[in-house]
């Protein structure tokens, strides 16, 4: 910083951050409210959390959503990284334009369009080749497609900053191309790989619109269950659910980023 920041800018920043965080904090506050009425404070209680644990429908949906998120973020990490390597490292190949377009498009495509079109594909495929029936499989396939986009954006920027001459040096010293990539470049892009896996995981865990279209009758994901509860009116157990998810994801992200920053610093000190 070359000059002191004017007080007006600090105020704007603080207000903006407050705007982002106050609703979340209020929600967490309400989750400990003994009263079932939204705005009336009936004393502190963990009643809604125990009610949540006894809700079999929510438990089942949560497990299903975690499974789907794990599978889709892992597959998306693989496909998204391959796409980034292709786009950053291979200057010219047939289909480059197509790949660049398709991998970026889900970032801006409205979910509702992706959801409808993918459902139509799955229904037509089922009719033509008998696979895949609507349910967990179709949800995972859809999630992989849009999560790969986020992976690719993150990994691409990291790959661009990785110095290719280091890899070439390793190859001059006799390493194969694969060896050189695994030993030299992979550690450099590792933080991007970890954070994009985490991001994919949370995006998949959170998706409502696409899942609602492509999922089948027996595969209701957690957001679908939450949405139907919210639609029906005030349900305080959703506050508890929301607080748990937000706190869980928040902790994971903070811990992961602190660990990564520490590892990064260790690498920098080594070099």
């Amino acid at each position: 910083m070359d000059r002191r920041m004017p007080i007006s800018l600090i105020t704007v920043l603080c207000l903006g951050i407050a705007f982002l965080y106050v609703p979340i904090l209020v929600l967490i506050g309400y989750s400990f409210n003994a009263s079932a009425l939204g705005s009336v404070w009936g004393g502190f209680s963990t009643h809604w959390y125990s009610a949540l644990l006894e809700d079999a429908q929510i438990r089942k949906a949560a497990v299903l959503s975690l499974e789907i998120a794990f599978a889709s973020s892992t597959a998306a990490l693989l496909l998204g990284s391959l796409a980034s390597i292709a786009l950053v490292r291979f200057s010219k190949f047939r289909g480059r334009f197509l790949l660049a377009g398709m991998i970026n498009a889900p970032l801006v495509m409205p979910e509702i369009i992706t959801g409808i079109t993918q459902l139509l594909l799955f229904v037509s495929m089922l009719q033509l080749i008998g696979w895949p029936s609507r349910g967990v499989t179709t949800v995972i396939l859809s999630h992989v497609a849009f999560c790969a986009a986020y992976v690719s954006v993150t990994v691409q920027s990291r790959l661009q900053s990785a110095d290719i001459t280091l890899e070439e040096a390793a190859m001059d010293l006799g390493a194969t191309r694969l060896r050189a990539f695994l030993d030299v470049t992979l550690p450099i892009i590792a933080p991007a790989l970890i954070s994009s896996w985490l991001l994919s995981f949370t995006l998949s865990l959170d998706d409502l619109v696409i899942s609602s279209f492509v999922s089948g009758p027996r595969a209701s994901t957690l957001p679908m269950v939450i949405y139907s509860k919210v639609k029906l009116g005030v349900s305080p157990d959703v506050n508890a659910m929301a607080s748990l998810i937000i706190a869980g994801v928040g902790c994971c992200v903070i811990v992961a980023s602190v660990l990564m920053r520490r590892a990064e610093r260790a690498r920098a000190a080594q070099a």
Partner: protein
Amino acid sequence: MARLVARRGRWFIILPPLLFLFVFFLIPFAFALKISFGEAALRIPPFTDLFGRGADGHLHWQASLANYRYLLTDDVYVVAVLYSLRTAFFATLMCLMVGYPMAYAMARATKSTQNILMMVIILPFWTSFLLRVYALESIIRDNGLLNAVLLQLGLIDHPLRMMHTTFAIYLGIVYSYLPFMVLPLYATLEKLDRTLLEAASDLGGRPWRAFFDVTLPLSMPGVIAGSMLVFIPAIGEYVIPALLGGPDNLMIGRVLWDEFFGNHDWPVASAVAIAFLVLLAGPIAIHQYYQVRQVEY
């Protein structure tokens, strides 16, 4: 020879994502297009085939533009599209007005503060979108926190109606998409050459002049990137109008959803989706252009 093998080996890297996205992202649009020319039918799946064998055993095909004609004759769709465009436009503008000063302040903080601020801005984006919209509802509903505080303070004597209004939708969009606006803006503002501003002030330019003549024009790529990242998804937004909006706030995403789950008219829904996509082609092309150009440094 080794070069040839290496060149062929590249396809092991290129093909998996290319094929996957081709089949599961691009081909679906072809199916939507095909089905949009069909008719709704009481069967599974609920639409007619374009190709089929007639009673005479000959292959025939039947396509009609009836669904598209229907979109133009029924007011609901045109009104919904216009309302969505208008809402998304003003919401993006508000997002820009809130996000620009934030990004500007971030860009002028010290390096270590910048890292923390980045984290603070990104964190809400990691937490559930659906739950954040729901959290907003608990603040602005008639017996929500905001009304309770305002009543307590004596600023109002009866609860303000905020839920189920256009205001609620604007608030929802700005609240949910603010990080998408701040981050690209911050990225361009942070890279901006500070010496240019100093030159402007050395030459006697007032700070405001320097801002409008130097900073703002140079940050346009960030403004465009951020605006597109808010505008495009906001047009097709479903969750925000469904949870916060009222029955009058018919955005195209909601119409599409109802056509599909309520009326079960898949061909009309497909036609709406295709028409909507054509409408979005311009903004998406702008975004893709900047995105692809970024890749081809």
